[in-house]
């Protein structure tokens, strides 16, 4: 941390020390910026941190012990019933929308206008009016602009907390008006340790930590989700077979293409994602970084499928996978896209 050696806060957050430290200091010193932008991959803890920050702002306790987690304010923020903390998200938009049938893919300008008018009211119970805007990536273009002026100079008692996935994808005008808090995936040992604390066996904790790649919220979810883990194990087994035998691969993509045509696009994308993961493991293994692999439980089978994998071949295979994802996203015929992907993979028996 460089500047601070002692923990100055009691926030119930795992990891993200630097981000939490910043926010806790802001609360304690009273120097609150008017807008914060939290970015990071799904399941990394963005919402948790934003809510905790909101709690800390409105908590009844002394500055040093905020958020106390026990006072009525803290409790009601957690329940979502505190009047001075508003949350806007796709979900809340759908709930409040009168036209239930309309497609709920973006946060509309109406929602943002509503937010603006609610934000212009003075806080009722605390010193702050906090607005949490989730899914900022999905705010429509016009709504962004409607947000700008509020975002630049809101009333002095307003704090806006924006949550998005990718910082770079947001308009510059939004980015420059917020204090950016980037939440990166946690390191593997931290996640594994947390899982062990929650009673997961060592090996399993390590595997889940690898699989979720530092997204702690995801890891905790997965920990209790036997079914998903089981599915994953099956998929991985299939994936290893595909990489080991081109014929299996061709048969398998035929099935995937059918699945895709039937509309289960997400499922196919997940499968490709998994294949990408397996190829990446091979890449890491061949490049001499065996400890970084994700699917640690099958790496042995993977490498034995072809003992002389070459770096260039693996790289081409990975690019083929990315190409397939891209092709699918621009509506190339699924079977064509997937076959092309598999054909570009190196053949285990026939390489070098």
């Amino acid at each position, binding site marked *: 941390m*460089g*500047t*601070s050696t002692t923990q100055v806060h009691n926030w119930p957050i795992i990891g993200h020390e*630097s981000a939490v430290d*910043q926010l806790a*200091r*802001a609360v*304690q*010193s*009273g*120097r*609150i*910026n008017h807008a914060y932008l939290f970015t990071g*991959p799904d399941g990394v803890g963005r919402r948790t941190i934003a809510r905790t920050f909101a709690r800390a702002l409105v908590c009844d306790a002394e500055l040093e012990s905020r958020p106390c987690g026990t006072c009525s304010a803290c409790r009601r923020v957690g329940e979502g019933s505190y009047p001075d903390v508003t949350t806007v998200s796709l979900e809340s938009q759908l709930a409040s929308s009168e036209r239930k049938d309309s497609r709920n893919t973006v946060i509309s300008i109406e929602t943002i206008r509503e937010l*603006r008018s609610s934000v212009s009211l003075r806080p009722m119970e605390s*010193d702050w009016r906090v607005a949490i805007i989730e899914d900022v990536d999905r705010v429509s273009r*016009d709504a962004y*602009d*409607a947000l*700008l*002026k509020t975002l*630049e*100079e809101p009333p*002095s008692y*307003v704090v806006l907390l924006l949550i998005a996935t*990718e*910082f*770079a994808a947001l308009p510059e*005008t939004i*980015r*420059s*008006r917020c*204090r950016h808090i980037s939440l*990166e*995936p946690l*390191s593997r040992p931290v996640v594994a340790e947390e899982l062990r604390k929650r009673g997961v066996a060592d090996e399993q904790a390590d595997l889940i930590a690898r699989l979720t*790649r530092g997204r702690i919220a995801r890891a905790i979810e997965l920990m209790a989700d036997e079914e998903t883990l089981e599915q994953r194990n099956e998929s991985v087994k299939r994936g290893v077979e595909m990489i080991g035998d081109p014929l299996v691969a061709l048969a398998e993509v035929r099935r995937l293409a059918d699945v895709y045509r039937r509309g289960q696009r997400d499922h196919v994308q997940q499968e*490709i*994602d998994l294949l*990408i*993961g397996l190829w990446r493991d091979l*890449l890491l293994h*061949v*490049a*001499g*970084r065996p400890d*970084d692999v994700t699917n640690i439980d099958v790496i042995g089978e993977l490498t034995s499928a072809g003992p002389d994998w070459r*770096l*260039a071949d*693996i*790289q*081409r295979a*990975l*690019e*083929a996978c*990315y*190409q397939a*994802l*891209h092709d699918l*996203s621009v509506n190339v015929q699924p079977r064509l896209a997937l076959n092309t992907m598999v054909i570009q993979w190196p053949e285990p028996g026939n390489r070098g």
Partner: protein
Amino acid sequence: MLDCGGSGAGMNADRYNSGLHAIESLLPTGTDPDQKVDAQRMAKEMTSAATAPAQSQSLYRKYRPTSFEPSQYIGQEHVARTLRNAIVLDRVAHAYLFCGPRGTGKTSTARLLAKAVNCEAEDPEQRPCNQCASCAAVNSGSVVDIIEIDAASNRGVDDIRDLREKVRYAPTQLRVKFYIIDEAHQLTRDAFNAFLKTLEEPPDHVKFVLATTEAEKLPDTVASRCQRFDFRRFPVESTVQHLKNVAVSEHIDAEEEALLLIARHSTGSLRDALGLLDQLALYGDQNAEKRVLNAETVRQVLGLSHNERLIGMVEAIAGEDAGEGLRLITEATDAGEDIHQLNRQMIGYLRLLLHLRAGGKPPEADDTAVKLANRFSLDQLTALVRTFSEVDAASNKSSYPQLPLELAVVRAIVGEQRGANVVEMVQPPAAAPSRPSAPTPTPAQTPAPAEPRSIRESRPAADTKPAQSTPAPKPAPTPPPRPAAPAPPAGQGNEMLDHLQANWAHIRRDVKAENSRIAALLSSADPANVTDDKIILAAPYEFHRTKLNEDSVRQVVERVLEQYVHRKMAVICMAPEDVPQTFAATAAPSPAPTAAAPEPEPEPEPVPEPTTISDPEPEAAAPQEVASEPEPAPQETVEDPVEPDPEPDEPAATKATAESSTPAEPEPVEEPESDEKADPDAARLQAARNIFEAKETKE
């Protein structure tokens, strides 16, 4: 910008000399006295101007400039000067359009202008004085006659009609009512149209300022009614200077390097820079007397990588150590660094190396960078920059955010051999008959001959004497190319052909700048031969040939090529199998115009159009193949050597006479040099001789 900065510095010096440096002793040590004076003044003026005791007050809101004084108003001197003069001469326009990227001072300037116009100071030079009643009222934010409209939320025609109604009423407190319309591009089309009349001739007591980040979205009818000012991004130096001043008045003890990092990160936006300073200053220990900000903190909070990590990655690529490259990426992600940020820094660093390798001397380059740069060829560095530039686009399609970057590193390493081949191809074959594909510790020598040439040729305007200056190429570390290799003199068709092929990608890019349709045509054609005043392109498809031989298209190509060969050359396009394998001497006029429209080939082998994703240098590889293709059958081309000349127009006729007047000139030059050429060239030369002899006997 430069001269404005100069005058600003001059004023600083004046103030300094006039005795204000007495304050110096009162100030903390460690900064330049000039700046301290500035900072003090600014702090005083600004805090007095700071509005209501808002609870959350960002630095960028607190430190909006309050006057046009250079100590306050930085970066946009060209705007300040014009506006001040307008105020002094009382020629303030009724509508202004401020455009520029975010955080460059559009809104701040609009408010300043409003204040200055309404200021009651006797001397117009002093406006805004920040002392009179009007200024005070504006500063306190209690004025109703300065109306800021957020066009994004009041974008409809009804909002504008409402505005039109209100415009008629006289101001209540000030002399002139100001409408500041922010994000003006957001108004709807109807709203703009409803606005036009008002904007053209508003009442005398009303002025408009339209501020927007996207000026091109405004209708021309609106833009033409306003005086337009373009706000530029703040240069790094003035950002650092401003940050320094703010830091002093905020009692933040900031390292110079920290401020520099912030300034770089904010890419010219002062709002970003001040926001970052604000954020980072909070990071330090709050209980201390002074808040401390060091470079380490900045890196940590911004997720910036140390230079060491970047150097490590470039070294891993140079040493072909994929494992090390991947390890560094994992290390960075484990340390919580932003992977996009890392990639951007990587591109930035490679760009620095590219500059160094190309002979530039960027100020931020150190010895390590120079050493690293010399481990790559210019082409390799170009390929690397391209490889890493593609990473961002590919990212986040899968759940492995770091994988695109990892792949880029691997591609940079396993693609190395291919990169080396490219270097080999573009250089004259005589220079390196064979060469290990892996870069040796001092690879600078091998690729060198190709480089200085391409650098020079791509900037013909900068170098007026190409042939003479060759022996002393710009980059010091590269040894001179083959002694006295003349660039593209007459008759060195072979030489020039190599030169064209090596630069074909550049040429196409230049053509693209003029006309992208023609560039698209050129992508299917390659330089196949050069006679002493003709450049022959080979295109396998009839369609491309016909198009390229059209006058309008041909002239564009000729114009661009002229910059590369430094003289006027005619361009002719023909089928690859019709290209004569001869150089200038054989280009005597021939009565057989067969080449103009050769038998349409149903399926000629397409000009290599690599579709493999991983091929890093498709263009450079192509010409060589085409050129060497027809070689096996040189005898057949004897009958119809070079005379396609599809359009017998004026230039072609002069060409023909020029040809006959200098028919055999190049041959003697060619002979001695070609003897030392490597095999492919010998074959080509042999072909040339055969044709030449055949022709002589015929004649």
